[in-house]
C-alpha cells in the first residue's frame, strides 16, 4: 500500500507540529496517520538465547570440513626452500636465450610505448568564469569530458588530459556557451568561421611529446 500524506501531516508525524497546529481540513488525515503510526509494534526484538550457540556450531562445523582446510592451505603463507643445481654451460645457454628474447620482445614494448598517451596540462585564465572545459578532437569535442578546475590563483583554471600521438585541435568552452582559443597556442581556421588551437603530440624516444 502506498500512502502519501500532506506535508503538514508529515511534520506532525515527525513531531515538528502539534495536532492543534494542524489546519482543520487536515485533522482527519492527521488522526488517521497517528493511528497508523500508533499501530506499529515497537516491542524490541529479542533473539532466543540459543541463537549464538547455534551460529557458532555452524562456524565450527565449516572450519572442520576437508574442503575448508584445503582452501585455507591454498590461501595461507608458508616458507619453502627451492634449490637449483645448475651447470655453468646451461646457465650460459639460459642467459643467451634471455638476451635473444629481450631483443625480440623489446621492440613490441617500444611500440606499445608509442601508443601510450602523453599527458598534457591545459591552463586557462578566465576570471569570472563559472565553468571552463576543454574540448577537441581528442575527446570527440565533448565539453563534458574534460572540465577544468579552478586553481589557487584567482581566475586560473587547469586540467590534465591524456592525448594520443597526432595533431589535435581544441578550444575552451567558457560557461557552456563561449568557445575561446588558447591564447598561448598556435591556431588554425576551424572551417566554421572561428579558430581552433592546435597541440601536436609527436613520437620521440620511445614515448610522446607535445610540440
Amino acid at each position: 500500500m502506498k500512502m502519501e500524506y500532506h506535508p503538514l501531516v508529515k511534520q506532525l508525524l515527525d513531531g515538528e507540529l502539534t495536532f492543534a497546529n494542524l489546519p482543520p481540513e487536515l485533522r482527519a488525515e492527521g488522526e488517521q496517520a497517528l493511528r497508523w503510526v500508533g499501530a506499529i509494534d515497537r516491542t524490541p526484538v529479542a533473539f532466543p538465547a540459543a541463537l549464538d550457540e547455534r551460529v557458532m556450531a555452524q562456524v565450527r562445523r565449516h572450519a572442520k570440513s576437508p574442503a575448508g582446510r584445503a582452501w585455507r592451505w591454498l590461501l595461507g603463507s608458508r616458507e619453502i626452500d627451492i634449490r637449483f643445481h645448475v651447470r655453468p654451460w646451461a646457465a650460459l645457454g639460459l642467459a643467451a636465450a634471455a638476451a635473444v628474447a629481450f631483443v625480440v620482445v623489446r621492440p613490441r614494448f617500444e611500440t606499445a610505448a608509442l601508443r601510450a598517451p602523453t599527458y598534457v596540462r591545459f591552463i586557462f585564465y578566465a576570471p569570472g568564469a563559472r565553468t571552463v572545459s576543454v574540448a577537441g578532437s581528442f575527446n570527440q569535442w565533448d565539453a563534458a569530458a574534460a572540465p577544468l578546475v579552478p586553481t589557487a590563483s584567482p581566475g586560473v583554471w587547469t586540467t590534465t588530459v591524456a592525448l594520443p600521438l597526432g595533431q589535435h585541435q581544441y578550444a575552451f568552452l567558457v560557461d557552456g556557451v563561449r568557445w575561446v582559443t588558447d591564447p598561448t597556442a598556435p591556431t588554425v581556421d576551424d572551417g566554421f568561421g572561428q579558430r581552433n588551437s592546435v597541440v601536436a603530440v609527436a613520437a620521440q624516444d620511445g614515448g610522446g611529446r607535445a610540440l
Partner: protein
Amino acid sequence: MGVLLAVAVASGLPAQGRVPPEVAAVVEQLADSAAAVGLPVEPLREKAIEGGAKGVPGERVIAAVRSLVARLGQAAAAARAAGLAKPGAEVIEAGAFALNAGLDRREVEALVRRSRPPYTPAATLRVAGTLAALGVPAVETAQLVEQAMDAGETPGELLDLPQQVERGVARGASPGAAAAGLGLGRATAPGLTQPHGSPQGPQGQGQGKGQSHKP
C-alpha cells in the same frame, strides 16, 4: 529510413546526439567517397562532431567537411607526387593540417620529399604546420624546416623548432623574425638568445608524461 538508420548506426555520429541525422548521412556519403580514393575518413567525422558541438548550422558543417575532403585530397596528391606511392593516414592528415595552416601544395610536396629517415613525413609536416599556425610565413616555414634537416638536426631537434619560435615571439620578435633568426643558426632575431641547434635538450621528455602545455 532503414538506410538512414544503418548509416546512423555505422557512423556513430547521431549516437553522440550532436549531429543531426541528415547531416550525418551526407557526411557518411562524403566519407565513403573519400575512403574510395584512399583518404582517411575519421577527420571528416570529427569535423562533423565538432560542428555539432559548436552548434554550427548543418549546411555549414557539410561545407566544412567538403572543404576538409578537398584538403585531404590535396595532401595525398602532394605526398604521392613526392614519391610515397600509398601515403598513410598520418601523413595525409598532417599534410592537410599544414595546408590549413597556410602552406601550399608544392611546399607540402617538397617537405615530404625531403623527409627521408631519420625524419618522417608526418612529423615534418606537423612541425611545419605548427610553425605556420604560429604565424611564421609559409615560405619561411618551409625554408626553416628544410634548413634544419639539411643541417643534420636530429628529429627531436626538429620537433623543438615551434618551441624555439615561441620563445622568440615571447621575447618580442615577430614569428617570421624568430624563424629567420633560427634559420641563420644564430640569435639574430630580436629577443632571441638561444641559437638554433643548441645542445639544450627538448623540454618535457621522459616518456612524455606529465608535460605542461604552455600556459
